[in-house]
């Protein structure tokens, strides 16, 4: 971003003008291509691309076509690619114009673009593509959920699991029944022309609209950087309420055909809920373990490691969907289960690949979902009914607020860290609805009520995304809600986190209380003793967490130093404290300080820099089938490089080489030529 801001304003506006122009050109191309293809399909249906030779006896012989136009052949992939390209260009455009993206969240802008595109397509008279439910649930939703699940902060999630479950299950049930019931009451009002909407349809509608949507929540909350507790509460709730939504939806859909609900059905509904949620988690966990086990053997085929992660997770999602279990929970369980073991097994490059591919796919999916939402709004047939729509919006807000307040009152009795009024407000305000509600509504079959419901659903989505999405950032600042703290990766905090865990487990033992920490400790020990041996390759299976954390940190620091070193500038020093300052001083020794001439120092510096640059060049060439031995795989290499760069830095500032360094791993030595050295003795 810094690079883009440097050119003067004129060229910035030129770039945006260029982008806008190219976007318009793309629009026209899409539209023309679409209409041309349609015309082709309608008229030239019988024309195949090659004439059968037997027909040509009576024809005049046509000259050999040098250039021919055959759009049908590539139509589908062409249109898909064009849509995705358009969506991404729009996203690019928003970020180049800095003022807009700070005020309006990206999701709003994308829906707006979708509205524009839909409007244009409709104006031309073509049929706009609608957010097909199959497309949404099978292709667009999984990447977002996998991205969320794989990078879920486990500690925060498990600590607040009780709260999250209460919000997800009880909260969603309350929403569904409250909205459904009140809407039925509204429909009974004379003069609203809604008399034919019966109770079960209302309850079905309530169950569709009640669920908080993970896509919308992610899109908005990502940009406001709120503190971890609130983020995990709202986001966890949006993920876990999928099971409730699935059960309620199928339940009411079945019964709106049958017409009545008995007690047996209600009991079966509860059983179904347990099966759907626990079954989903089980399916996900099984696939997760399979994925972890597979990753144990991939040390010789590093290139395909990321694919295993993606495919096992996708299979978990699809398998759960086969049995009508909760696909979202299955995907989350798979990601969570797989991650610690896979990360211990795969190479650093694969880890980066997984991270970036997931982010990329989920970003594309999110963009497409919002644009399609906008297009479908313009395209679909609507049945606007003021009473219905307005009361839906109002009831959604009211039920959300009441639900959160009521549930927090109960939950706070069991929490150590209570939820304050500010927290409750953010949780209530962050209950956004999104594309899942739309797709579920789209799957309904009854055409009249479907249009009515869809209109209301779209209005609620627009209201929550636009109004709540845009105002949540200023509100967060106004209420001074705690923001996400910078994750510095401090080793002291890690040491003390572990220390505290063991301390609290010990105190629980002394108290005689089998609490939270006791069971966590037991799980960890089980994990270490049995599971890790099976799922992690080689020696890393017995590596304690503190050591892996420390190694990760070292690697990060070393990579940072190497990267900044190769940019031909010495790394800036944050503090001048170094190892000498903390080593206990031995008896005063005469330290031999070799004083090096300036030219020699320059030579040494050049040697070091060249070696570092050579590393970079080595990394650039690789074949598709095997990667060259990754220099960062070997941790001692890493440490050595880090120490070389540190030595370089120290030389430029102190001009002394510390005499008693016992920690340097003696991998390779830089040779000083003895004839250029002059020793001076330091008698301090």
């Amino acid at each position, binding site marked *: 971003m810094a690079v883009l801001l440097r050119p003067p304003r004129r060229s910035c506006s030129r770039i945006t003008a260029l982008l806008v122009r190219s976007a318009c050109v793309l629009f026209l191309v899409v539209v023309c291509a679409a209409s041309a293809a349609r015309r082709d399909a309608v008229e030239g249906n019988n024309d195949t691309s090659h004439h059968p030779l037997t027909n040509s006896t009576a024809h005049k012989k046509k000259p050999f076509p040098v250039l021919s136009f055959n759009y049908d052949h590539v139509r589908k992939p062409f249109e898909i690619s064009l849509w995705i390209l358009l969506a991404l260009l729009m996203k690019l455009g928003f970020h180049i114009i800095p003022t807009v993206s700070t005020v309006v969240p990206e999701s709003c802008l994308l829906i707006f673009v979708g509205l524009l595109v839909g409007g244009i397509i409709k104006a031309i008279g073509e049929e706009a593509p609608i957010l097909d439910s199959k497309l949404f649930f099978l292709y667009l939703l999984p990447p977002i959920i996998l991205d969320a699940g794989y990078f879920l902060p486990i500690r925060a999630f498990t600590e607040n699991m009780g709260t999250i479950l209460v919000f997800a299950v009880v909260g969603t049930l309350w929403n569904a029944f409250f909205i459904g019931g009140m809407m039925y009451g509204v429909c009974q009002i004379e003069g609203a022309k809604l008399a034919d909407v019966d109770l079960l349809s209302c309850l079905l509608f309530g169950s569709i609209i009640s669920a908080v949507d993970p896509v919308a929540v992610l899109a908005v909350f990502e940009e406001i950087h709120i503190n971890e507790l609130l983020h995990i509460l709202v986001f966890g709730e949006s993920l876990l309420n999928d099971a409730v939504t699935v059960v309620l939806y199928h339940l009411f859909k079945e019964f709106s055909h049958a017409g009545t609900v008995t007690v047996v059905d209600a009991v079966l509904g509860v059983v179904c809920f347990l099966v759907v949620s626990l079954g989903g988690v089980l399916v996900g966990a099984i696939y997760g373990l399979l994925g972890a086990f597979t990753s144990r053997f991939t040390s010789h085929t590093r290139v395909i490691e990321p694919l295993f992660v993606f495919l096992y997770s996708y299979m978990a999602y699809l398998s759960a969907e086969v049995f009508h279990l909760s696909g979202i929970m299955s995907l989350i369980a798979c990601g969570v289960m797989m991650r610690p073991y896979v990360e211990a097994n795969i190479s650093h490059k694969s880890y980066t690949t997984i991270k970036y591919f997931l982010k990329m796919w989920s970003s594309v999916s999110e963009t497409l979902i919002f644009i399609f939402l906008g297009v479908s709004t313009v395209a679909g047939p609507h049945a606007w009914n003021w009473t219905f729509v307005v009361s839906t919006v109002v009831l959604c807000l009211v039920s959300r607020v009441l639900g959160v307040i009521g549930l927090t009152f109960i939950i706070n009795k069991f929490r150590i860290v209570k939820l304050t009024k500010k927290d409750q407000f953010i949780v209530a305000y962050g209950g956004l609805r999104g594309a899942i509600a739309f797709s579920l509504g789209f799957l309904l079959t009854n055409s009249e009520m479907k249009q009515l419901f869809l209109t209301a659903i779209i209005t609620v989505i627009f209201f929550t995304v636009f109004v709540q999405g845009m105002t949540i950032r200023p509100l967060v600042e106004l209420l001074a809600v705690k923001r996400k703290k910078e994750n510095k990766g401090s080793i002291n905090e890690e040491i003390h986190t572990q220390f505290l865990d063991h*301390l609290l487990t010990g105190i629980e*033992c002394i108290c005689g209380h089998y609490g939270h920490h006791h069971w966590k400790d037991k799980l960890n020990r089980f994990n270490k003793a049995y599971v890790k041996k099976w799922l992690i390759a080689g020696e890393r299976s017995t590596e304690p967490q503190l050591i892996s954390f420390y190694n990760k940190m070292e690697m990060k620091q070393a990579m940072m130093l190497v990267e900044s070193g190769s940019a031909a500038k010495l790394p800036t020093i944050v*503090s001048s404290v170094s190892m000498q300052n903390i080593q206990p001083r031995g008896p005063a020794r005469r330290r031999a300080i070799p004083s090096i001439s300036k030219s020699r120092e320059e030579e040494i510096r050049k040697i070091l820099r060249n070696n570092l640059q050579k590393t970079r060049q080595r990394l650039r060439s690789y074949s598709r089938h095997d990667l060259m031995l990754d220099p960062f795989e070997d941790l001692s290499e890493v440490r050595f490089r880090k120490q070389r760069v540190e030595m370089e830095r120290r030389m430029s500032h102190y001009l002394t080489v510390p005499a008693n360094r016992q*920690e340097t791993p003696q991998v390779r030595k830089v040779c000083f030529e003895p004839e250029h050295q002059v020793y001076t003795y330091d008698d301090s």
Partner: protein
Amino acid sequence: MGALQSLPGQPQYADLAEKTGFSYDQIGVLHKRFNQLSHNEETLRRDHFNDIPDLACNPIRSQIIEAFFDRRNFRQNGEGTVDEIGFEQFLVVMSHFKPPSLHITDDQREKIRKEKLRFIFNMHDTDNDGTITLEEYRHVVEELLSLSETLEKNTAKSIADAAMLEVASISMGHMEPDEFYEGITFEHFLKLLAEFEIESRMNIRFLKMDTTTLCK
């Protein structure tokens, strides 16, 4: 053992309740546990703690036990260690793990924070000199990693060294090459763990303790 009634000696409990902030129920439950651990004697000794089997697999067991016998944790500004403790000292040490109540002022919260961090500081500073030296910190890390079988001596040392370096960088900022960083004082410790939120993490739920399901 089951002869403990529900209202034994209320006056002495009132005194303890005021000192430590526990409720009468909690004190009653803890008293039961104290009697169980000490086999109905008046005082607890170190070998009573060593008898708890579940505690044996805890890597920092010895430091936890020492904390109970450390006079600095008795809130009487004492120093040094004792060999046996009564129920009152047991309760005082336990009170460091009480969750803070909901409606407290910022000052009280700060006080509670300092108290809990002081407890941990005392656990690290084994020689009572007010600073955690490099040796003591190395010992802490070694204990934490003592349960893993494949441990290189150097790894624990380098982790502790890196941690110490971080503390020095945060607290001192700029140091000349021949200056020596003595050790972590309590102020530096506070600064180091400023974002650790210890007041919400260092807590045991005393509410739902059921003494019948005790680890032996």
